[in-house]
């Protein structure tokens, strides 16, 4: 087991170094050097420029600069935002819970609906329900989610007035962040009204962000179930006279879950990428909206740090899924 964990960890290190190199290159590829970018159109005296370059280590050879950058990153220094002058890491840390909360709800939404829908579609293969689920999921998979979000706002917020248009909470309430998760924080201080407000703010963004994962989970569950249902052990279970519910729920679903869990893990990247669009539409104060704002403000250190942190989060989640996979499936653990 230990050997399995160490091998997987060993595979992650080059990927992480590669991402660090990529984000390091990022700021060099922007036209103009970092100081000129920082100074903007104000201009700067040549001697001051040379001094700043020396201070920031820009006169060092590139490999030396890269090593310094890796050193800084490993000690948690991701630079400072050009606009707010705050440390990029702390800005990210304040906004990330909002993104996580939304991504988590979207994941829950897609699994809670996608899994049963996929199982039912497989069991009732060829029925109108199956065709409906498959058609809807292909539509969901093809959905431009920024447009989908606007349609939902138009219908539920503007026409029906059921849900708020943007933000995380009504302006009436102020909740001191403890965990950063609005649903938990409001309950911690005992403000049930604020909790309901936070929940209503979450509904539409959750649906929008969860639509593509929902489609993927439903399709994957269906095809995994179909594969498992044709196995001999299912026929055996049926022949033993076990009730249908037990055959499907216990014998088939458990085995079909393995590829489904992998796909769910892979969707984390999609969720964090989709958060860029969803957060922009709903003015959701998370890292996705912050990244787009950083681009528009030409705040390259913030962009650089944000990309590195999001990539790290994706790598970490994939690693965890990989490890869990090994824990639950001994065949993989002992494969190499």
């Amino acid at each position, binding site marked *: 087991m230990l050997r399995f964990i160490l091998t997987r960890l060993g595979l992650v290190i*080059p*990927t992480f170094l*590669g*991402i660090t190199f*990529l984000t390091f290159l*990022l700021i060099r*590829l*922007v036209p103009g050097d970092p100081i000129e970018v920082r100074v903007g159109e104000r201009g700067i005296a040549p001697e001051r420029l040379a001094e700043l370059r020396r201070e920031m280590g820009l006169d060092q050879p590139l490999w030396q600069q890269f090593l310094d950058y890796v050193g800084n990153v490993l000690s948690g220094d991701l630079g400072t935002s050009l606009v707010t002058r705050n440390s990029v890491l702390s800005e990210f840390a304040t906004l990330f819970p909002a993104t996580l909360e939304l991504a988590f709800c979207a994941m829950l939404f897609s699994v809670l609906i996608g899994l049963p829908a996929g199982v039912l579609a497989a069991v009732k293969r060829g029925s109108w329900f199956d065709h409906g689920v498959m058609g809807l999921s*292909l*539509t969901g*998979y*093809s*959905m*431009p989610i*920024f*447009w*989908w979000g*606007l*349609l939902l*706002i*138009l219908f539920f917020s*503007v026409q029906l007035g059921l849900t708020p248009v943007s933000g995380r909470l009504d302006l009436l309430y102020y909740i001191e962040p403890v965990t950063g998760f609005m649903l938990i924080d409001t309950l911690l201080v005992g403000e049930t009204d604020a909790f309901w407000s936070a929940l209503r703010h979450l509904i539409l963004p959750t649906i929008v962000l969860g639509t593509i994962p929902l489609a993927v989970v439903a399709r994957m569950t269906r095809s995994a179930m179909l594969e498992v249902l044709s196995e001999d052990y299912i026929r055996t279970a049926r022949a033993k006279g076990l009730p249908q519910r037990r055959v499907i729920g216990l014998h088939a679903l458990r085995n079909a879950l393995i590829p489904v869990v992998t796909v769910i893990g892979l969707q984390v*990247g*999609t969720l*964090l*990428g*989709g958060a*860029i*669009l969803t957060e*922009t539409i709903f003015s959701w104060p998370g890292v996705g909206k912050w*990244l*787009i704002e950083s*681009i*528009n403000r030409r705040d390259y250190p913030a*962009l650089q740090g944000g*990309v590195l942190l*999001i*990539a790290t989060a*994706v*790598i970490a989640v*994939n690693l965890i899924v990989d490890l869990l996979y090994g824990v639950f499936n001994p065949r993989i653990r002992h494969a190499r």
Partner: protein
Amino acid sequence: MTTETQSAATPATTPAPGRPPHPLAEFWYHFRQNTGAVIGLAVIVLIALTALTAPFVAPHDPNIQYRDAILVPPVWQDGGSWRFLLGTDDIGRDMLSRLIFGARLSLLVGLIVVTLSLAVGLALGLTAGFFRGIADTLIMRAMDILLALPSLLLAVVVAAILGPGLVNAMLAVSVVVIPHYARLTRAAVLAEASKDYVVASRVAGAGRLRLMLVVVLPNCLAPLIVQATLGFSTAILDAAALGFLGLGAQPPTPEWGTMLSSSLQFLQSAPWVVTWPGVAILVTVLAFNLLGDGLRDALDPKLKR
């Protein structure tokens, strides 16, 4: 298996008993079974024809502003007119004509992105699969790094570095999807390279380049064709998303995503300016996904019978 059961399975395509049907005929037979895929193909052909003949079929110039017809609703709503079937936008441009010209851009984006990423991915995958060793490790590690980034995030970053614009958006989206083609090609090459026919042509004296391009490559094409079709939909969606975020095509270009974002403030008063571009994106992407699914079923020998 006897010839009788074979001809029973494919009655229409079996020309003479005992002779296998032409691969294309066999492919069409399996493809035709999938109604969704046929619909997808029909829609794509229709969109492509519209895009090609845009200057003739579009009722108006996509950039002409009719000052007397600002935010006119579609023809079936109160105040709509036959002059503008799908209504006009906030500066009086005909929605239908802009959508038709937008189809050109979206299909062009799909075509260029798929060609670029397929070419680069194919080259990388062939190199990795044939030469193995250090080249393989380096290429596949680099692909893993690209895959670790959420695709839209990577596209946004690349577009931010290159600067906004349709060409840069296409480059950004191409970079993002290269790893998929590289991995598929490498896997297919590895599966084929040890087969007898490859060994035979190597023994017969075929050079490395000939082995790569003439012997092995044609037998790796099936999964790549499927991926390329699905790649159209990813490319169109991502380019529209970049347009929506202001990092893709710039106004007044009638790109669907850009059209959507530039009329956002009229979402409540004139929903059609936001609805139509989205419908266009959805229908096009859905058609390519249907076609891709159908191709996969028709080309995948495992699922065939």
